[in-house]
């Protein structure tokens, strides 16, 4: 397994966004529908004919009302759920199951409770055959990065929700997936930690050139982080609109909050989501 070095060493190769390689498709979602069998003979169309291309290295957020199929879409890309119709592809190959090229960060953390914090972060690396000493060192570095230095020997039950989420992020970053699938990763965090982790994530994304698919309920967060914001609507879950966020990078929160374009994006997208609600 090739491990991309963390921030400090990788900075040299980071260029401004305009200098990125011509983008190729990392994820292609082609006429994907997902129908769930509900109790009795009924079924529920959770996703209806989704078409979407996500370029290599893009940061894409998904917004939409609760139950519109955001998590389901993420699970399909992760290979955890097989779509009832259509194909999802990663790097041009149809997705048939999970793989270390796509790292999930779940809404529910899903940490291994019998492993301490460091053990959780090392787990994926060890699974990929990395030497223990190497995994240990990289694990500690990652934990420092997510602000959990000193908590290496804590067990998940001894952590707050926000800390668990940070462990989950570090655990996924550890095995260096090309695609990050993040399901409301900052939803449970306080505003301060949230801002910090948003910036850390942008740093990681910028230096490691990952493709990020990011589900959130916060319009501001989506606009702040993303190249593209996908707005979904419910019943059946479908893509309502795709908004390109044309704001310069690197982005500074303090500057953006005063930036009229940033504010306009937020207002516009909020309107789109509200429009959807009228039809319910």
């Amino acid at each position, binding site marked *: 397994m090739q491990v991309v070095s963390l921030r400090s060493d990788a900075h040299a190769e980071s260029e401004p966004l305009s200098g990125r390689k011509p983008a190729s498709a990392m994820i292609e979602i082609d006429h994907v529908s997902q129908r769930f069998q509900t109790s009795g003979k009924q079924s529920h169309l959770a996703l209806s004919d989704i078409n979407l291309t996500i370029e290599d290295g893009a940061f894409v957020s998904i917004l939409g009302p609760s139950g519109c199929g955001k998590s389901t879409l993420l699970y399909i890309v992760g290979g955890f759920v097989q779509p009832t119709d259509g194909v999802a592809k990663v790097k041009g190959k149809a997705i048939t199951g999970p793989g270390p090229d796509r790292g999930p960060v779940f809404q529910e953390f899903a940490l291994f409770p019998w492993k301490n914090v460091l053990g959780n972060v090392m787990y994926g690396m060890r699974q990929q055959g990395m030497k223990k000493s190497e995994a240990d060192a990289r694990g500690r570095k990652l934990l420092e990065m997510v602000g959990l230095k000193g908590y290496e020997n804590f*067990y998940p039950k001894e952590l707050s929700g926000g800390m668990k989420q940070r462990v989950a992020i570090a655990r996924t970053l550890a095995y260096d*997936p090309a695609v990050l699938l993040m399901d409301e990763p900052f939803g449970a965090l306080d505003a301060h930690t949230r801002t910090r982790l948003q910036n850390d994530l942008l740093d990681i994304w910028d230096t490691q050139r990952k493709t990020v698919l990011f589900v959130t309920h916060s319009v501001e967060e989506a606009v702040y982080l993303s190249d593209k914001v996908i707005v979904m609507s419910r019943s059946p879950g479908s893509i309502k609109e795709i908004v390109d966020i044309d704001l310069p990078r690197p982005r500074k929160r303090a500057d953006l909050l005063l930036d009229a374009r940033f504010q306009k994006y937020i207002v516009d997208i909020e309107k789109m989501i509200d429009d959807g609600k009228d039809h319910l």
Partner: protein
Amino acid sequence: MTVRGVLKTLSPLFACIGLLCVWQIASLRLDTESFPTALESIKAIPSILGDKGSLLNILDSIRRMTIGLVLAVMFAIPLGLLMGRIKAVAAFFNPLMMIIYPVPKAALMPIIMLWMGVGDVSKILVIFLGVSLPIIYHAFQGSKAVEEKMLWSGAAMGMSAPMRMLRIVLPAALPEILTGCRTGLVLALITMITSEMIARQSGAGNILFNSLDMAQYDTVFAMILIIGAMGIIFDAAFEKLRLSLVRWSQPRDDMPLSFT
């Protein structure tokens, strides 16, 4: 340690002493030959443990119990875990278990003796049967309850299905499995004694019933005390082991329900 702490740790001891006192008084009052006093019974213990034949008998019992228990654990844990994760396995074994579950395993002893004699094999088999079911049940429950996202996380790390079974389902279900094993341990002791009552050839249960036949009541009660002590010691030792294995899952201020 605080006074309360001391009282808490010593409370099982007080309970034992209290029971023995009640026994002593009751026996003195009733004054029948078949109900020796607590003191008389305790006095008979050294002579049993000092007797080489009796000691070997008791060790024999423990040996059979251990073999039965270990075999049951080795069989029941994998089966229960598979049942919890694979619907077809559960569908096949569930009806079978529903039939076997309510049958007292000791009631099978006569048939088993008929087929396999009165030796070790029959007794170990009965212990195995008695112990397996609760462990299967708990392993099944524990495995079924494993959070799916945890398995997904493992799959994304490149773990194969058998690997996830071994490295995620097993540890995640361990607290529940060990709860089953604790029940299994006590059941092993019970079935061990019962099997020796029925196939009277050797063992602790055999000593007990032989002395009953010979009206050596102090030996009978001494044996009951020895067997009871064995149960308490095994259980306490296992509980120590269990806590050290699943400390990660214990609620912070858990009240331990045992002599630890």
